[in-house]
């Protein structure tokens, strides 16, 4: 096979001492970027991009993509230890990762997160290696109705299964939608709900909200409950990695599902954040011990992490073959490619073989290097929880503030972070779920835009969502998933039940 030959050649390109060194440096920088909330992969790559202009393009892109891997790995650390998602796609990791840490199982959660990240990314790389041209064509099938269908599927696979009363879930989601609507409206180009305040022009950034809701909200709660971390009793065991690994194969089905969801979302390109939410939702739906989710299930860490990484990795494919970035970080990498005189697009694979296969080979190597680097640090990260609360809490607050500031270099965002912190605290006290709120905030804007674009295309006819087999089957699947719990209830009550009919929206 020609691809294998190309890949071997790629390994030869990537496997020089210099490039391996760049990989290590990239991974380390990436982990640090991922740990600092708000700095994020996109900002990190943007800041470091100029440093790489003096390098040969292949080395430069290897280092930058390793920063990207590192950031993906690093995002999980603060999510698990402090309930602060370092990256948007780590939000779903907090749902079970943080309760695990509180129970003294931080080491296990971290190992599970890192290993799943690796599995997801590896799956995606194999897919890229062998299916690149095919997959690129599939991405072209996605117009506005298809995007909306995917976003609908994300909502449906996540909604309607929480333990909270549906009214509270819907209320939380509506607040999220309302906040997502602030700022410029892509479809009409007018400002909405900015009330003449320049600070509101940007709208409410998802990251700022998440840092406040989860990070600060949690600190407020801890302060009320006695100024100490619950997880500090956890023993630090250097063998924790092996112990966790023995347990992980049990979740192969969840992993596989998460890989598929992730790759699909990365390629289309729905992005890593919806992928992680969708995967978590599905894992919970299919799990036997559904009710334990949210209390510290290792499966609840495996599902979102695997999907996020599969998506984050496969997002590079539409970037290389079509020039459309699947994530903000990919967008900055794309800028880098142009500066090196590499033109992403269908011909890149033909004209710049060395570069493309060098990059793909570096994905394999970068991931392996990354896994080794992060796994060896697991006991150290877990040990942070033993530092007294009085020392670590102010540090977390400062890091949160810096994170919120760096999102847009704006002081107003720091104020908003504190406001969101209070909202997070109040939500928890009143037992309103945060997840639907966050999901609506991150996807609301996108879903609204693609819905209205679809309506423009069809002249207001809802039939567009069943206009071809692809969009029709996604929308139907979404509605089936939404109605599934009802069907389950009917079945357990009446015995018979029936298949749910796709209802007209």
């Amino acid at each position, binding site marked *: 096979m020609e691809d294998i030959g190309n890949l071997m050649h790629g390994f030869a390109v990537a496997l020089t001492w210099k490039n391996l060194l760049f990989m290590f440096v990239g991974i380390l920088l990436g982990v640090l970027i991922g740990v600092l909330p708000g700095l994020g992969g996109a900002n990190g790559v943007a800041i470091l991009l*100029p440093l790489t202009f003096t390098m040969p393009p292949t080395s430069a892109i290897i280092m930058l993509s390793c920063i990207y891997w590192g950031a993906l790995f690093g995002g999980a650390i603060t999510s698990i230890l402090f309930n602060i998602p370092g990256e948007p796609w780590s939000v779903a990791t907090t749902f079970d990762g943080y309760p695990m840490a509180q129970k003294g199982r931080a080491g296990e959660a971290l190992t599970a997160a890192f290993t799943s990240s690796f599995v997801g990314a590896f799956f995606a790389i194999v897919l890229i290696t062998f299916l690149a041209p095919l997959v690129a064509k599939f991405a072209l099938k996605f*117009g506005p109705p298809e995007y909306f269908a995917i976003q609908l599927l994300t909502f449906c696979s996540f909604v309607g299964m929480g333990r909270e009363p549906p009214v509270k879930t819907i209320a939380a989601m509506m607040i999220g939608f309302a906040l997502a609507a602030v700022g410029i409206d892509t479809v*009409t*180009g007018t400002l909405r709900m900015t009330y003449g305040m320049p600070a509101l022009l940007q709208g409410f950034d998802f990251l700022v909200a998440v840092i406040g809701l989860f990070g600060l909200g949690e600190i407020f709660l801890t302060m009320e409950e006695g100024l100490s971390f619950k997880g500090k009793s956890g023993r630090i065991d250097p063998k924790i990695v092996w112990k966790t690994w023995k347990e992980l194969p049990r979740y192969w089905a969840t992993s596989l599902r998460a890989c598929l969801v992730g790759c699909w979302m990365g390629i289309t390109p729905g992005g890593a954040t919806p992928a992680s939410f969708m995967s978590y939702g599905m894992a919970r739906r299919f799990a036997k011990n559904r009710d334990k989710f949210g209390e510290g299930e290792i499966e609840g860490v495996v599902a979102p992490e695997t999907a996020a990484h599969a998506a984050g990795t496969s997002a590079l494919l539409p970037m290389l073959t079509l020039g*459309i970035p699947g994530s903000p970080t990919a967008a900055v990498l794309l800028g880098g490619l142009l*500066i090196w005189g590499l*033109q992403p697009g269908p011909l890149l694979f033909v004209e710049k073989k060395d570069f493309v296969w060098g990059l793909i080979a570096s994905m394999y190597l970068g991931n392996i290097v990354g896994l080794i680097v992060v796994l060896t640090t697991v006991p150290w990260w877990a040990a942070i929880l033993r530092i007294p609360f009085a020392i670590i809490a102010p540090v977390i607050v400062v890091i949160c503030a810096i994170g919120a500031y760096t999102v847009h270099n704006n002081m107003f965002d720091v104020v908003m972070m504190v406001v969101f912190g209070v909202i997070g605290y109040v939500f928890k006290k009143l037992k309103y779920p945060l997840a639907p709120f966050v999901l609506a905030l991150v996807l609301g804007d996108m879903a609204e835009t693609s819905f209205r*674009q679809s309506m423009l295309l069809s002249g207001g006819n809802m039939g567009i969502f069943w206009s071809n087999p692809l969009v029709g089957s996604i929308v139907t699947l979404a509605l089936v998933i939404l109605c599934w719990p009802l069907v389950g209830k009917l079945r357990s009550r009446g015995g018979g039940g029936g298949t749910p009919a796709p209802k007209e929206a």
Partner: protein
Amino acid sequence: MVFTLRRAFVAAGFAVAVASPFPAFAAWEPTKPVEFVVPAGTGGGADQMARFIQGVVAKNNLMKQPLIVVNKSGGAGAEGFLEVKNAKGDANKIIITLSNLFTTPLATGVPFNWKDLTPVAMLALDEFVLWVNSESPYKTTAEYMTAIRGADAGKFRMAGTGSKQEDQIITVALEKAVGKKMTYIPFKGGGDVAVQLVGKHVDSTVNNPIEAVAHWRAGTLRPLCVFDSAPMAYTAKITATQAWGDIPPCKTQGLAVEYLMLRGIFMAPGVTQEQVNFYIDLFKKVRATPDWKKFTEDGAFKDSFMVGKDFVDWVSQAETIHKQLMQEAGFIAK
């Protein structure tokens, strides 16, 4: 973790340094990192150019202080413009503009105008090309116009970047020339727009050359005409048979629409001529590099450099044209 925290504190100190206001000096040269504001998101045309300039400046040591690109895309760029407008006398801040310098205040009513800023230089002008899918039957502008005229209003679909911005302005002008409405579908970025056309979800686009060139070379898109008075100056073959210069101007094809987008640099109000001169000089040096030559060639930019009165005259004229076009299209905020 200790290392992490130290990095965080360094980052914090750095951030504060960038944000603090700074008095102007005589015999001038930037004394701290220069903030290069991009009033648009990452990955777009203006962002690419800014990051490219940042790279050239760093690579060739053109400035003692680093140049730092900051995206302020809120409110269709209003956030970035307002920030520079309010940074009176701060010479360590420059902004790259696109057409939203004119369109955003008109469409959203956010209070700023180019006269609130200090004009520095025009770096280049960006061209617009009418594209269709290469599998569509339209080989010439005339054929496409006839097809639009013959169909029901709104049947032909044009994708573009943003709403009430340059792409939609061109679309409205095109509708006027053809005498039939199209359906305009706004997307967030130029790359998305091009891919929507490749996937045949829409009928045409008015992408900038750089946004569509990869697909043109791959044979999936076909250029019909360029919205300029003369053909583009680049004669190197891009596809097997065609160069940028082979695309005919729209007005010779019976479509009398012209539009060029400014890629210019502005500073905050209240800076001295000496400070402006420093940046004019800097950009002259950037333009002299081979990197810049290659960059403008790849993006098929119209390479025109203007400073001082010429630049101000050009900008005032462009503002009048935008006002008129947007008035006619009904895009002005009430």
